[in-house]
């Protein structure tokens, strides 16, 4: 099985680090693990209308995989990120299995790519015209299709929705299909005030994501889990690590504090092994980040 290696247990979540350049004034990108925006074969927009609204302790945003397309990323953003020293995982999202496979083919051997994240956590796949991976079988099919197209030693992570009722099943299915690990989190399906399907993120969803991480870690102790969802404070990182997550992703918090990763102690403790405790549900002493 491919090993999951990360230079730091605090990772920039997909879609929240811009092209990387936007973060450069605030952070040293050297050694920073960063997941790209979810890429599609062609550029995608959101259409007219508001993209983002505030909710208590959360943001509700359209999640139609707005991006410039894989070609623009490979030609423009990836070389810049690699030069800056970022540890790049590329997030992929498609409308069909064939699109996922094509994306994996184009990304998997691009110089500097350290891993692939298969986005199976789209909050409104039908409305966005994207592959509906809510059924664990379908999620597994995507992972198999991607796995086949990328080098054997390239980590393939599957990003799953924080849906407590399905997440363990999905995690098991994608791990069996060859996923190196799972990212549990991503936006909770929600709606903008006018009813437009959207995703909710931020601290409002953190307890939900934490529960999902707990469940997956307990059921599948051999699968590396990356936790994501409203992580903004060092205590949140500790809670997800204590639940068994080998790493965490930070997204929304970057939008109101572009320096938050340093506050969360990224790279502060390189000696600390990136692994889960043996008994995720035994209480852990509070550790300093």
């Amino acid at each position, binding site marked *: 099985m491919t090993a999951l290696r990360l230079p730091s247990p605090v990772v920039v979540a997909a879609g929240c680090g811009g092209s990387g350049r936007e973060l450069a004034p605030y952070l040293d990108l050297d050694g920073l693990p960063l997941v790209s925006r979810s890429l599609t074969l062609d550029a995608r*927009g959101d259409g007219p209308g508001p993209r983002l609204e505030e909710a208590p302790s*959360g943001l509700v945003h359209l999640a139609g995989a707005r991006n410039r397309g894989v070609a623009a990323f490979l030609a423009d953003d990836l070389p810049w990120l690699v030069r800056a020293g970022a540890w790049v995982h590329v997030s992929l999202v498609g409308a069909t299995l064939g699109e996922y496979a094509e994306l994996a083919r184009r990304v998997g051997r691009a110089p500097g790519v350290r891993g692939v994240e298969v986005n199976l956590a789209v909050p409104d796949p039908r409305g966005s015209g994207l592959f509906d991976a809510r059924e664990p079988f379908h999620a597994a099919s995507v992972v198999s299709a991607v796995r086949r197209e990328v080098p054997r030693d390239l980590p393939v992570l599957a990003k799953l929705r924080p849906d407590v009722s399905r997440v363990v099943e999905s995690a098991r299915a994608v791990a069996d299909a060859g996923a190196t690990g799972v990212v549990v989190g991503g936006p909770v399906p929600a709606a903008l005030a006018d009813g437009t399907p959207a995703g909710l993120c931020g601290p409002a969803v953190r307890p939900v994501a934490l529960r999902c991480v707990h469940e997956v870690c307990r059921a599948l102790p051999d699968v590396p889990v990356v936790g994501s969802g409203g992580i903004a404070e060092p205590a949140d990182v500790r809670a997800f690590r204590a639940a068994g997550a080998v790493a965490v992703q930070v997204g929304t918090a970057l*939008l*109101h504090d572009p320096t938050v990763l340093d506050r969360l102690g990224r790279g502060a403790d390189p000696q600390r092994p990136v692994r889960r405790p043996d008994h995720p549900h035994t209480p852990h002493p509070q550790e300093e980040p």
Partner: protein
Amino acid sequence: MPVHVVAEVLANRRAGAHRVLTLAAPGVAEGFRPGMFVAVTVGPAQLARRPMWVHRVRGSGTHGATLEVVVEPRGTGSRWLGDRAPGDRLPLTGPLGRAFALPREPVACLLVGEGVAAAPLLALAERLRERSCAVTMVVAADDEAHLLATLEARRLARAVTVVTADGSVGTRGRAEHVVADLVAGPVAGSAPAVVYASGSPALLRAVARAAEAHDVSAQVAVAPAMPCGTGLCGACEVPVQDAAGQPSWARACHEGPALRADRVNWGALADRRPGGGTGAARVAGADGVDW
């Protein structure tokens, strides 16, 4: 280079319907040029930041260089900001965005500001005067209480036209109705060579139209809600076109706020759906007044 710092509120004074906050924000004032803004974090449970125009930057005192931002307390976030007291701390990032481009030659400039969005124009007028540009200003608002810094405008500009929607002071009407004549000039002796505008989309569009009709260069400060201010979230994108007419999008916080008026796709901008029924995300002024 922008920095993220915890600013300290040094003063909070009333200016008509607005509050003017003086902030000590180390490192922010140094790179400031007129048209840039700061993104301020509000309250613990509100995750979208409020973009605030930098109104003035003052040189070093006991606190180093300080900045003034203008708040129009209208939405939850801006009311919270307007209530900050000296000693309170505000995490913010700045200076952000692209500043107004300045003319190379000493030419006549018309500056049009509406409501709280007039905030960045005072610093701009100062900078233009330093370059020997003849500055004419229009300061507009719904009523007298919402007019910003007209006294200071009179000190900086050769001529100031005051416009209020209710006629409480100056010309009765809306800024978008008077700009066409002023762009055509002459005002205070010369027709403007450059127009700068900051205000509602209707005003900016009227300025763009008039500038096009009279072949005058125009820059507009577009300021929809900017939840991050740093170019990460993409929520503030406005439709634009390049010189060849090829459509694309510009982030108001990153490629703007100051944009060439002829590059904004005004038709597509007007077609954007207004926000949801709760008023959660209507297009807001740069102080996030609707937030």
